[in-house]
């Protein structure tokens, strides 16, 4: 009886805010307001980290714009005239699975993971001269749902966190000369964290220069 109405209103709004915060931020699209959504600047910085991984050899070698994959840290064209073929799985006389099994073969120096194949041309991160695309272009490609198998931010995060061929990059096995392949510039955990920040910020992309 003697409670101030404005206090009640404030209390109600406070509870609402707490509940809203507790529901998390993944459902937010660009432009939506949310109390703990990272600022766009943080999202862009996180994207820069993600990009650094995507264009590292273990990832970009299979995201080519051409009819061939690449190999090696110098990203040269894959030997033996291995080519993309239909569905990025090679051609009947020489499919990816002709050599690449579902796990690394360290004794013979051939990397492997389940369902080894090339990323589709829609997910190319290089130009036809084998040069990596800009951060802006790769970001656009990765977030374009008509090109990325209809993945939203949450699906992208899950892809980076769990997909086996993605995880492979951090366990890439031995080369034929016995040395270990290099891994991306961030750890997988860092990569996932950066992805999460970027996604929570609304998957912002840098503007093209």
């Amino acid at each position: 009886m003697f409670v101030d109405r404005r206090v009640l209103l404030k209390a109600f709004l406070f509870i609402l805010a707490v509940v809203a915060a507790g529901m998390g931020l993944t459902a937010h699209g660009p432009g939506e307001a949310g109390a703990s959504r990272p600022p766009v600047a943080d999202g862009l910085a996180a994207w820069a980290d993600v990009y650094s991984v995507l264009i590292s050899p273990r990832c970009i070698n299979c995201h080519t714009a051409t009819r061939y994959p690449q190999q090696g840290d110098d990203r040269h064209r894959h030997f033996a005239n291995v080519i993309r073929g239909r569905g990025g799985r090679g051609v009947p006389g020489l499919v990816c699975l002709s050599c690449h099994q579902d796990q690394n073969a360290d004794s013979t120096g051939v990397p492997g993971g389940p369902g080894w194949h090339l990323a589709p041309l829609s997910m190319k991160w290089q130009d036809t001269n084998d040069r990596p695309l800009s951060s802006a272009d790769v970001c656009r490609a990765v977030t374009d749902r008509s090109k990325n198998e209809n993945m939203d931010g949450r699906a992208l995060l899950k892809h980076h966190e769990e997909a086996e061929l993605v995880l492979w990059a951090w366990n890439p096995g031995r080369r034929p000369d016995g040395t270990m392949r290099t891994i991306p510039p961030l750890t997988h955990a860092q990569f996932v964290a950066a992805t999460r920040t970027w996604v929570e910020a609304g998957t912002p992309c840098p503007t093209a220069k």
Partner: protein
Amino acid sequence: MATYQLTVNGQRKQVNVDPSTPLLWVLREDLKMTGTKYGCGISACGACTVHLNGVATRSCVVPVSLVGDRPIVTIEGVANDPVGRVVQNAWVEKDVVQCGYCQSGQIMSAVALLKATPKPTDENIEESMGGNLCRCATYVRIREAIKNASQKIK
């Protein structure tokens, strides 16, 4: 050492080998099947090509521990397949071989192509055979033999 049960050309075989041993060397030395050849050891030449569950596979880089129960077909057994027989006959009819060392692999790759694409174009042929090396360069007659075989496959 580990024991593996392999199905090779329809027959069950048991071998006891180091798990890291490439299938190529298990075939050649443990099973004494020398038709599959060692040319480079890094899957660059195709001389070691077999079929693993119907897929043309370069056996020099596949450790026996990763084969599992997938059936293996080698050059010694490919005549059991009607396409295999047609291809071998085409190879003989066209007098393809010279030294012959690469030809087991060439034939296995060609059979895989023709089973998937019975009427391959020139481009299909060049793509599927594009990773098989022949130092004698019998490539011209390889193309002719594949076309010859293709005509005979229904």
